[in-house]
């Protein structure tokens, strides 16, 4: 059972890394933007703060003080008759005033004062006073003393002006302060808006990123869903289950060293019937319900999966004891035998269940384990279906024997150990040989001549081998028919073919059906009659019918083998282009004793008559059989009473004895 390889996580990782980087870049970019902005705003604040408006107002006030003090010392000197000390005080106060005027007219304060436009006249007067007084201040004491009266008048004049200067400066800078406060408020509101804007952009970016990542993750999840889950049941498919199983095995070899787990293989026995009776929609619902049951049954303990068609697998962890009486298996049996109700119709459930228990000491891979469970399931199926079988050493031996047989048989085809025996089919009443049925024999070097019953079931497990065998049989039968024709015995040869290996998809069966006439053009002569087992007819009759029609138009002829043993649906006769119906030997063998078998044969005969189909009875072993069949109206027979299966050489001899039964003129029925 091929299990899909694991898909890499590289893409997911890449996506995650890209996302992280994008978010980091966005945040870093936002922060840098904020920093740059904050820096510029801070700079603006610094600028506003450094304008020394308080300084200017203070300096203006100091100017007023300085003028007042100069005035005061001049008046004192005048009152004290200009003592040396009082003149020295005048010189000091004059220098201080001079210095102050320098401050008021230069530098930052000078620029501020220049804005106060109303006081240019005062500043001019001030400078004129300083210029006129400087020589007097620097002159000798008597000269300075002589000019004091005039200087006092000048200073008084300045004193009368300075108040208004101070007030103007004060008012101007109060207004200026208001203006600056407004500006700061504006900057602050801009800052706030910008922060909001940057934050919003960052938020949008991050949100969109997250959204995109989530969307990608959802897309990823959907892809995963499609790739790993079954549409009908919503259960994991073969791929995901295989991965899980391998993980479980790896886990066991790792940390859960003592845990036993069970692998369960489930095949629904009656799914084909459900589909036939209720249609595909109901069939799907049926599968879904079974899937739900399995899911509910294992819960967190394991994992159910649907492998194909009506096949499920189940992984059950934490099996405490390696025995078969565990409640979980009883529950499993119960849930797979309780009818399902769909649209108020009760549909019975029947399943063949195979279980293999995995012990930690087992050195086994996932595929081997699945094969074991599969073998156990087959064993359950052979044991009569609707039961549970555990894989054990006997089964293991069987499995071993099977794979050895398959390998050996493969070899047998290549080394020509297979032979065809032929059993004549005759019409007793018309005394005619209708043809021969080619029967496979394996001329085993050790075990002698083996009939198909000893190996065909096992060979059928391997579809490729079965195809190879069918091709071999057809090739050989066609070749030997040609040989018969050369010897003047033109006979129709029946070949048993298997069109459907029940594990395959129907499309494979249909493809096989149409492929034979293409691969063996000799079929087109109409001398090859392909015998299909009734149990081999696939569910989709319409598809099968059209495929058979295609093959028939290419010259192939069809016989429905073992009629009466399977579902024997009337629609088979209606839908399939048949050339012959073969009554199963089981009815013939006990029809003398069992009334029902006789009735079935009568029914089949009447049915075939209605469809205008020739009927041949198999297993005619005695004269009594032949007489009974004749009395029922069946003239075509095959069996030991007529002739045993024989090699080609013996057949030629037998045919020679029945020369009159062969009509060379009559070609096989078309």
């Amino acid at each position, binding site marked *: 059972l091929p299990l899909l390889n694991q898909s890499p996580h590289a893409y997911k990782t890449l996506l995650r890394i890209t996302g992280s980087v994008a978010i980091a870049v966005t945040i870093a970019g936002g922060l840098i933007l904020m920093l740059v902005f904050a820096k510029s705003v801070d700079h603006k604040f610094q600028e506003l703060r450094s304008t020394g408006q*308080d300084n200017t107002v203070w300096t203006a006030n*100091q100017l007023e003080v300085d003028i007042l003090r100069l005035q005061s010392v001049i008046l004192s000197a005048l009152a004290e008759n200009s003592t040396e000390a009082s003149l020295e005080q005048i010189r000091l106060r004059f220098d201080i005033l001079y*210095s102050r005027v*320098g401050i008021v007219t*230069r530098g930052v304060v*000078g620029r501020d004062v220049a804005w106060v436009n109303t006081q240019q006249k005062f500043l001019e007067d001030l400078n004129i006073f300083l210029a006129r007084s400087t020589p007097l201040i620097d002159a000798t004491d008597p000269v300075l003393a002589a000019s004091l009266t005039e200087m006092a008048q000048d200073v008084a004049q300045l004193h009368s002006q300075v108040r208004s200067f101070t007030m103007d400066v004060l008012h101007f800078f109060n207004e200026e302060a208001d203006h600056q406060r407004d500006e700061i408020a504006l900057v602050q509101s801009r800052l706030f808006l910008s922060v909001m804007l940057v934050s919003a952009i960052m938020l949008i970016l991050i949100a969109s990123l997250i959204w995109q990542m989530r969307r990608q993750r959802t897309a990823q999840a959907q892809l995963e869903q499609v790739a790993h889950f079954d549409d009908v049941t919503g259960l994991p498919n073969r791929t995901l289950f295989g991965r899980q199983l391998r993980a479980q095995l790896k886990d066991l070899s790792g940390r859960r060293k003592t845990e036993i787990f069970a692998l369960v293989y489930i095949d629904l026995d009656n799914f084909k019937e459900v589909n036939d009776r209720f249609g595909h929609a109901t069939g799907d619902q049926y599968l879904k319900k079974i899937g739900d049951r399995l899911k509910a049954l294992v819960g967190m303990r394991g994992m159910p999966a649907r492998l194909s068609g009506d096949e499920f697998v189940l992984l059950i962890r934490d099996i405490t004891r390696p025995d078969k009486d565990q409640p979980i298996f009883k529950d499993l049996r119960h849930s797979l035998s309780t009818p399902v109700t769909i649209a108020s119709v009760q549909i019975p459930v029947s399943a063949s269940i195979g279980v293999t228990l995995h012990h930690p000491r087992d050195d086994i891979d996932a595929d081997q384990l699945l094969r074991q469970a599969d073998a156990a399931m087959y064993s359950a199926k052979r044991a009569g279906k609707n039961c549970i079988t555990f894989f054990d050493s006997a089964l293991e031996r069987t499995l071993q024997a099977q794979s050895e047989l398959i390998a050996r048989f493969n070899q047998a085809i290549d080394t020509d150990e297979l032979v065809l025996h032929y059993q004549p089919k005759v019409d007793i009443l018309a005394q005619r040989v209708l043809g021969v049925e080619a029967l496979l024999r394996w001329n085993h070097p050790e075990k002698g001549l083996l009939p198909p019953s000893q190996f065909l079931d096992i060979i059928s497990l391997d579809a490729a081998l079965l195809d190879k065998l069918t091709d071999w049989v057809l090739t050989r039968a066609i070749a030997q028919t040609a040989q018969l024709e050369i010897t003047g015995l033109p006979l129709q040869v029946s070949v048993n073919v298997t069109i459907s290996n029940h594990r395959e998809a129907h499309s494979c069966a249909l493809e096989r059906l149409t492929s034979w006439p293409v691969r063996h053009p000799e079929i087109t002569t109409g001398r090859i009659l392909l015998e299909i087992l009734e149990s081999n007819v696939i569910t989709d009759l319409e598809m099968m019918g059209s495929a058979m029609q295609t093959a028939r138009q290419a010259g192939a002829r069809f016989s429905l083998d073992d009629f009466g043993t399977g579902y024997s649906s009337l629609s088979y006769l209606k839908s399939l282009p048949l050339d012959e119906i073969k009554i199963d030997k089981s009815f013939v063998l006990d029809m003398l004793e069992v009334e029902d078998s006789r009735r079935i044969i009568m029914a089949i005969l009447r049915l075939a008559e209605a469809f205008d189909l020739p009927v041949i009875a198999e297993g005619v072993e005695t004269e009594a059989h032949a007489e009974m069949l004749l009395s029922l109206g069946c003239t075509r027979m095959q069996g030991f009473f007529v002739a045993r299966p024989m090699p080609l050489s013996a057949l030629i001899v037998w045919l020679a004895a029945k020369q009159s039964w062969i009509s060379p003129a009559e070609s096989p029925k078309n």
Partner: protein
Amino acid sequence: VEISRALKTHIGSAKYAISRARPLERMAALAVLLLMLVSIKSPAIADPTITVTLSATGTQVHLTRDTLQDLPMTTYTTSTVWTDTVDTYAGVLLYDVLKTLSVDMAAQNGQIVFKAADDYQVILRFVDIDKTAPMIAFLRNDAVIPPRTQGPFWLIWPYDLSSHYRTETIYAHSIWHIVSMDIEF
């Protein structure tokens, strides 16, 4: 003039002695220098003076341009917010003055109260004084700073050097017309 010249000689020889002396002798030499500084009392002289008072001992020292010029000189070339030009100011670092006066600069709550001729007053804490600023400037472009332009003594910082020196606090501390320093520690 004579007194000043004599003082200059004294200080010069003392400085010579200090620079050659070992630590202990250096201390002694400093004491001599201090004594000499203290001993010169000339309140009536025309030379501009800063009266330094060390509050711990009550001693007074008078600093003139001449006495200051004997300490290591420093220059700043900078603009100021009170002038329109970039000028070169020369003077002595306040740090050097305090060191010369053996003031413990690490003293907690140490401070200097500066007073100006126009009664402006600032208090400067020791922690605000470092090895490169401020300085007591008395020369501008190699000429003495006259009283009519912030002279003769002006406490200034190298404003153009760093934005740390362009704060309102520093501007307020930049006292001119200095007449006295009360050193409290």
